[in-house]
């Protein structure tokens, strides 16, 4: 293979890696926002209640495909040596150790959340929920990874996407934490007749 073709191939891989990374950030942010919306019951009233949780789940599973693309194109890029170990071991890459390491860490945390969700019936509610909170850690780690490992912040529209995602997720997280403080164990949406018939008795214990 000629040197020019090699460089072009590598640049192609690098481009796909960055593009899929950005798409992944958008998707992951959407998954987090949807997850909070599912928990809070904040969806248009006409929608069936399973809509938001199901889209949350489907999008999360779908993003795994993009994640695979993002990781593979980065590893296979011959211009940089990241190494296969860095796919699962954080900070095992020689090239840009911290930036890539954060990405690996985000993947590890996200994998824990995803895998426990797939077997949550067998795991039990409390264990599943405990691990699921790690998603709130995985996202900031992924976000910092996108700032440090990505090279494209100079592009105005990339910056808009990055900060847009950050604002959306920060809002969602704040809403979730506030809900946890105000209503430690309250239900999501009640039937329409509930509030009319009974005064608010209090949260379920």
């Amino acid at each position, binding site marked *: 293979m000629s040197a020019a073709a090699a460089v072009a191939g590598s640049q192609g891989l690098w481009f796909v890696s960055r593009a899929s990374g950005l798409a992944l950030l958008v998707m992951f942010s959407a998954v987090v926002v949807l997850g909070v919306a*599912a*928990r809070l*019951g904040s969806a248009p009233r006409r929608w*069936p*209640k*399973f809509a938001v*949780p*199901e889209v949350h789940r489907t999008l999360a599973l779908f993003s795994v495909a993009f994640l695979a693309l993002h990781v593979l194109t980065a590893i296979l890029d011959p211009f940089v040596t990241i190494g296969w170990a860095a796919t699962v071991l954080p900070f095992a890459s020689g090239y840009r150790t911290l930036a890539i390491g954060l990405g690996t860490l985000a993947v590890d945390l996200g994998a824990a959340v995803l895998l426990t969700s797939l077997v*949550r*019936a067998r795991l*039990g*509610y409390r264990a*599943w929920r405990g691990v699921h909170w790690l998603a709130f850690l995985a996202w900031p780690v992924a976000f910092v990874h996108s700032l440090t490992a990505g090279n494209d912040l100079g592009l105005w529209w990339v910056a808009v996407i990055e900060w847009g995602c950050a604002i959306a997720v920060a809002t969602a997280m704040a809403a979730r934490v506030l809900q946890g403080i105000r209503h430690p*164990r*309250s*239900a*999501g*949406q*009640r*039937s329409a*007749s*509930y509030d009319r*018939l*009974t005064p608010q008795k209090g949260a*379920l214990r």
Partner: protein
Amino acid sequence: MTGSARLRVDPIACDGRGLCAEILPELITLDDWGFPVIQGDVPGPLVQSAREAVRICPKLALHLGKVPLQKRR
């Protein structure tokens, strides 16, 4: 009528979110406070939907099994 499976809800885990009633309206209705009233005997054709309802419950409060419903005491 004996069903192929037995559906029950753990009333302590249940928060009345109501997703189950949307998935399985044939067997689950909501009371005046949003909590599920379950017709426990699941006929064969509805077992798949019942499994969906079990999966979709955000509190994992639904249980599907072959054992007969246990008396509380």
